[in-house]
């Protein structure tokens, strides 16, 4: 089945989800990402990070596109929040900023990223706000954070 090269090659390592995306284990990501890059998926469209509240896990969804064969591919990884994920920023330069964003907002750390630091939030920000267990701080740089609008008339 040539429709999905990744599934053919790493049969035992991936599971096909019902929306057509492939779920893999984060440990295999290094080899699989290299394979994906080599097999013509040259365009990394998007990296989405998400927080699986119920399972106490974080997730990443990679959307690839092949400009030559005009095919799409979605890879998903779900893992505990302590894990370091292999960074594809050296294969796909666009992943640089996407991974920084995932780190900034979701707190996913990437192994081998050239410059993993915050991108959208200020450097002195604490916490990763897109996590479900994130709570608004009471102070930011000594300023109280207004939370209640009950003074609003």
């Amino acid at each position, binding site marked *: 089945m040539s429709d999905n090269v990744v599934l053919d090659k790493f049969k035992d390592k991936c599971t096909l989800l019902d929306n057509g995306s492939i779920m893999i284990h984060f440990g295999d990501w290094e080899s699989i990402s290299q394979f994906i890059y080599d097999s013509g998926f040259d365009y990394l469209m998007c990296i989405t990070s998400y927080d699986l509240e119920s399972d106490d896990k974080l997730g990443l969804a990679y959307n690839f596109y092949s400009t030559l064969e005009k095919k799409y591919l979605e890879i998903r990884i779900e893992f505990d929040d302590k894990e370091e994920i292999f960074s594809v920023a050296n294969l796909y330069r666009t992943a640089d900023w996407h991974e920084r964003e995932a780190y900034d907002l979701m707190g996913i750390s990437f192994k081998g990223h050239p410059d993993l630091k915050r991108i959208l939030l200020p450097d002195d920000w604490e916490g990763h706000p897109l996590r479900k267990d994130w709570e608004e701080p009471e*102070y930011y740089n000594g300023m109280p954070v207004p939370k209640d609008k009950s*003074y609003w008339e």
Partner: protein
Amino acid sequence: MGTNLLSEYVNNIIYGIRTFLTGMGLTFKHFKNKKDLVATLQYPNEKWPIPERNIGFNEEDYNVIRSRLHVDIDDCIGCLQCEKACPVDCIKIDTLKPPKGSDYDCGKTSHDTQKKMIVPRFTIDMSECMYCDLCVHPCPEECIYMVGGPNEPKHEIDYEFSQYERHGLIFEFATSTEQDILDIGGETYLKERNEKAERRQKGEKLEGIVDSDASGTGNTEEPEKAKHKDPLLEIFNIVPDKAARGIAKKAIVFGKRSGFDFIKMSDEVESRITASGKTSSEMSTAIENLKNYKPIISDDVPSDDTKQVTGESEDKKGTQVSEPKSFGFNIKSLDFITDKMVRGIAKKTFMKCKRSKLDVNATIDAIITDLDANSKLDNETKETLLSFKTNNDTPSDPSLEENIKEDSVKEQTDVLFDIKLLNDIEDKMTRGSAKKIYMAGKRANKSSSEVVDDILNELSDKLDDKTKELIGGLK
């Protein structure tokens, strides 16, 4: 080669001059024909024509111009649809229902819908409005809309309402007088409203914000204080389970606010953890650690509280300091209430009690009664509130009654069918009326069949066969 370069050089210059002349010719054409080509308007003297559309019952005829929001308050039935639709919460509506059995007439809308309540407050903060038009569509009576355009005979075009103060952009549409509110039996509402206005007059707008803004010296130390808390929370970092950790940390924070010591705190943690079924070996070690935790930071805990006190305005300072008991229970302790509305009510009551310098137990009692009055109290909330009491008083009688009452309410809902089932009715108007009857029935403790009969009787002329069948099936 040489000639190529030279011809390229010359061609470049010629091409350059040619395009320069083209461009200059074009700009000169515009310069010459300035009268015909001017595209701007002299704004205050001339204005853009406003595209026309009519306001009407048909959704296609809605006036689409996004300018200032306007409410025909006489038509408002207080359904709160627009308040719910607003993504930025810039609409605030209060409603008051006439008490059961009263013959107060709330009037009728221009669409002949009988109003069931009066709207003593309908405030729109246009400084927050983002002109998305989402509130206009759901209104069943079409009484909220953007003014301007073809509405001009009704309301003048109003997209120029700039103000010098932000307060000037808050528009109050409600017209109910105090007499109206009193007539309808809203003494408590009026009292609260006046108190709120009074507080606003005094400048205590910032109630409910974390307590620090007043004293300048406190501010610099505040973040440090937040950091000092960390070691206590870090104990639980050994626990791998994220959710369990979260629960534990919340319990600790809760315990701190309530002024527990470490043993009590760890008990609290343990109980919460077991309740959620997240026990693990790491967790139990962490709890043990917490029990044995005797850091210097414990000195910080009282100092925290004094700091909080300095945060209060000065006139309260003395009394607060003289009543150390109340530190265990402050406004933050109410944060455990998850429901936003309930929390708001509880906090209001708390502040009220604080002003009248009641002690903790009285405050908690007051909160419980207030929540009861609004029928927002569930058992869990009450228990937690009671646990705040310094001396473990037996719960007062009224609350016991509440328990019974609440149970009875629960039974009712079991008997009655779900209101959502009425959503299958296609006609909007009929659905509304049916739901109203349903609610009336619910209040009067009627059973399903009684309610269905009521609906069928009252709406018999409006219902088609299909709907009748549908409602009949609900028995």
